[in-house]
């Protein structure tokens, strides 16, 4: 299972790629593996405000409907609308074509609270034990 070291992670199993004030968000390889085949992704509209740890969407797999939680607060400036037609990209490429939203954050103070790849790996190992 892959957790790219350049990304940040949350205990809700989202990843965040920080590009200045833009934060690209998706769900982790562990999350997509646990969910199984993703059949539906519901994402917000561009311009929506989100809170850190607040919900921003819904993912449905063959096993469960799960809420999606924002790693940082801010405004959604991009949405991966391709997932409406191709939700399987979340399974096939969770860190690539399966990205979900881009948040423009005004609060850089939230970023250090996210987990590193090593911390996230330790967290899921603890969850699995």
């Amino acid at each position, binding site marked *: 299972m892959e957790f790219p070291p350049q990304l940040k992670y949350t205990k809700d199993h989202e990843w965040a790629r920080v590009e200045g004030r833009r934060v690209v968000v998706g769900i982790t390889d562990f999350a997509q593996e*646990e969910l*199984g085949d993703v*059949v*539906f992704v*519901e994402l917000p509209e561009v311009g929506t405000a989100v809170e850190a740890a607040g919900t921003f969407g819904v993912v449905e797999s063959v*096993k*469960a*409907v799960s*809420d999606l939680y924002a790693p940082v607060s801010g405004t959604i400036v991009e949405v991966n609308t391709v997932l409406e037609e191709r939700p399987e990209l979340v399974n096939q490429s969770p860190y690539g074509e399966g990205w979900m939203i881009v948040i423009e954050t005004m609060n850089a103070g939230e970023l250090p609270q996210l987990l590193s790849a090593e911390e996230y790996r330790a967290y899921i190992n603890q969850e699995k*034990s």
Partner: protein
Amino acid sequence: MRGHGLPQRWRFLNTGNREAAYNMALDETLLLRHEAGGTPPTLRVYGWSTPTLSLGYAQKACQEVNLAACQQYGVAVVRRPTGGRAVLHDNEVTYSVVLPTTLSYGPDTLTEHYRRIGLALATALQGLGLAVHLERSRRSAQPRRAADSPACFAAIARYELSVAGKKIVGSAQKRLQHTLLQHGSMPLQMERQRLFQCLQVPPEHRYAFVQEAYTTMTAINEIAPIPVTASMLHEALRQGFGDIFGVDIVAAPLLPEEERLAYELHTTKYASTVWNLDGATAWRHSAALARTS
């Protein structure tokens, strides 16, 4: 509530046969109130006062439901808060279980939760003499065509229950940060013909779907060694979950705040045609418009 362990006592709720909108509103209420803290894990059993076709969270009613047939046969339509495909609820026991996602022992993963609840359901049915099998393979055991069926019972997922290869419990789950809701249909009898009449199945394929359904899905009283009543199954479920999770499950009433939220969700969401037929996104837009007007 993050990180709290599993209390040793759960609540048992038997809410009897109720209408579709109330049934879904109460399941979502139990999930939301537990997430907010202050309510115990709950095992609920219930039935349906009117035959009801329930749809998964993301199913497109206009493409998958034959509304005229539902009206003709007196079948209500409701959308679940959980995922999956269509289920016809009639002569059945429905279970719902609301738990923290952090169990006090064992892995805290979706797969483990599915497995543990599957074991509890299996224990309940085995107690009634049924030789149930907990599916362990990762993918549907069904051929591709059955997997494409709009009916939930047409495909067996990992950790779902089957008897002689036929699905006997259809379950679906919704997860929040700290709480999960899993509910499922345990048919005592099954009307396969009526199910496919209520779905938008091309008429030329309906006969094949119904025939296939006899090989892919079954009901408790089609295979039980002795006739099983709803109350026998309620008690078996209470014991099965108690044994597998190592808890006492004791009858206790709804709290006033749960009654209030269930009433609100009943009237504003699950009795709404927009939620039931147009879906979650359309319902959220209409709710936002109602708030601003």
